[in-house]
């Protein structure tokens, strides 16, 4: 089944015409309503009239997360605040969150895109869908929720945590599909197996996102739970979950290209790469009213294909993500930059000691160990003093990162160095 055959299966020529028309309108609206972009365009001598069709998109300036932060909270909104019906936010690297807003029409677009992906994965209005993404400022919970309601299926809004209750509801309500992070489903799978519940539940599908995962994880989840698992991708800056998702052929994630125009660029030169080559994914929002973005750099590395899929959809497909072009780590769904750790250590210790982040996955939950070398100047004959230092570092890091790390004090020079430079991150999680 296809939710919106007109849009999802339109010919590439028709699609280009639609994208061109939408881009022209969007650029003109942004120019007149967002001072930040108007100035940026004026600096490079670009006028709205210079953008005639979708091919002209490369004349537009790029947007980064920093631009959103610089305009915190509502500086990039293109509509009066009174037209905003919802705010979401994601954790910021240095205190300030990245804030996004939606008009009523944006919410409609969002629920349309999510519904497309749910149908792509084989759901219909008869399904009962458990949402085990967090509800709140994070886009996962509410984003998926509205999509399921739009489809007409039944929502079980569980949010995160309380695995025992999640399993009870799943069994009692006859839940047929779940939306959550892949690591949480792995965790849930184990709990289901331990309780001998796998054959008692009616689960058939899973829509997993907000974290990088692999084909191996998909196969493992599918065989252990006897379900089919689908990838749902998105980021709050562009919209939230629903920007792209994969169909039953699992040959890449279909992008809702009538709403989000994708480009793949070389993160160094910022030039486009050839079809099929790996680069950084960039999105221009074509229809968003509240927060339209020009060429937003996602930092996610992937490749793209424009070939028609076996499922009949003509939309471009991106491959599974191959990493990031910055050093961001996603730990328990939270974005963590090593620079945040550095800043927090600086706060505690005045100058940065040598440190290393060790990320691992124990019982399918991410763990973060922060190793800190006990240099001469921190060292005291008093054990209590050292333990206080360790606790203070842990507390400061928790405040800064939003997740609880385990701090380990280690001997000086014990952290691995390559060419004199300390290695900052070891990610032991297996993501192929």
């Amino acid at each position, binding site marked *: 089944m296809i939710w919106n055959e007109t849009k999802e299966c339109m010919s590439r020529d028709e699609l280009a015409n639609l994208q061109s028309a939408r881009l022209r309108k969007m650029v003109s609206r942004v120019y007149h309503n967002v001072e930040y972009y108007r100035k940026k365009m004026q600096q490079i001598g670009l006028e709205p009239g210079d953008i005639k069709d979708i091919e002209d998109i490369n004349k537009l300036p790029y947007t980064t997360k920093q631009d959103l932060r610089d305009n915190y909270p509502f500086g990039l909104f293109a509509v009066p605040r009174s037209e905003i019906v919802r705010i979401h936010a994601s954790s910021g690297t240095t205190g300030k969150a990245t804030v996004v807003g939606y008009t009523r029409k944006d919410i409609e677009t969002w629920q349309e895109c999510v519904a497309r992906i749910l149908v792509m994965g084989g759901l219909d209005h008869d399904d009962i869908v458990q949402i085990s993404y967090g509800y709140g400022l994070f886009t996962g919970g509410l984003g998926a929720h509205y999509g399921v309601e739009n489809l007409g299926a039944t929502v079980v809004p569980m949010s995160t945590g309380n695995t025992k209750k999640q399993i009870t509801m799943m069994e009692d309500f006859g839940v047929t599909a779940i939306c959550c992070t892949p690591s949480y489903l792995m965790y849930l799978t184990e709990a289901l197996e331990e309780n001998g519940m796998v054959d008692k539940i009616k689960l058939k599908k899973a829509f997993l996102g907000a974290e990088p995962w692999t084909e191996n994880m998909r196969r493992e989840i599918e065989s252990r739970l006897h379900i089919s698992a689908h990838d749902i991708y998105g980021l709050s800056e562009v919209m939230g979950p629903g920007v792209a998702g994969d169909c039953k052929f699992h040959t890449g994630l279909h992008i809702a290209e009538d709403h989000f125009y994708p480009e793949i660029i070389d993160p160094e030169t910022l030039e486009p790469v050839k079809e099929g080559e790996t680069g950084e994914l960039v999105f221009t929002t074509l229809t968003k009213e509240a927060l339209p973005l020009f060429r937003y750099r996602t930092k996610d590395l992937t490749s793209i294909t424009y070939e028609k899929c076996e499922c009949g959809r003509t939309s471009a497909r991106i491959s599974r993500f191959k990493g990031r072009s910055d050093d961001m780590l996603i730990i328990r769904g939270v974005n963590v930059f090593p620079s945040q750790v550095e800043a927090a250590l600086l706060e505690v210790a005045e100058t940065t000691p040598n440190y290393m982040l060790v990320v691992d996955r124990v019982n399918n939950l991410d763990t973060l160990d922060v190793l800190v070398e006990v240099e001469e100047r921190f060292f005291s*004959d008093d054990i209590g003093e050292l333990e206080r230092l360790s606790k203070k570092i842990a507390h400061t890091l928790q405040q800064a990162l939003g997740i609880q790390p385990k701090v380990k*004090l280690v001997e*000086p020079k014990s952290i691995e160095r390559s060419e004199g430079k300390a290695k900052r991150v070891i990610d032991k999680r297996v993501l192929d």
Partner: protein
Amino acid sequence: MITQQVSVFIENKEGRFLRVAELLKDHNINIISFSIAETEEFGMLRMVVSDPAKTVKVLKEGEYSARLTDVITVKLPNEEGTLFGLLKVIADSGNNIRYMYTSLGDDGPIVIKTTNQEDVVAALKKAGYEV
């Protein structure tokens, strides 16, 4: 008397104390007294050695965090009630013992770290201890 003790930060892992002992052996340093305090992740090795300044130098060259701390060393006959007597003098002087350990040999000193070192040394001397 007040002696300089060497404190070393070591991780709570196999072979760590061994490496320190090897380093000191190689530099002909004798360990007279030692103790290891343990936490979940790290340990604190404290020792009275034949040459404290050299020990710290050797350890720093070996990339350890080490430092000198003043401790009290007292000779105590290995007899009934002597430890009680010593502890009573310290308690009566109104000071608290932070840590304390004994020596490897028969006639080695007892090592004591208290809240006010000078105060305790004076009290011990007054009570006739060989400090």
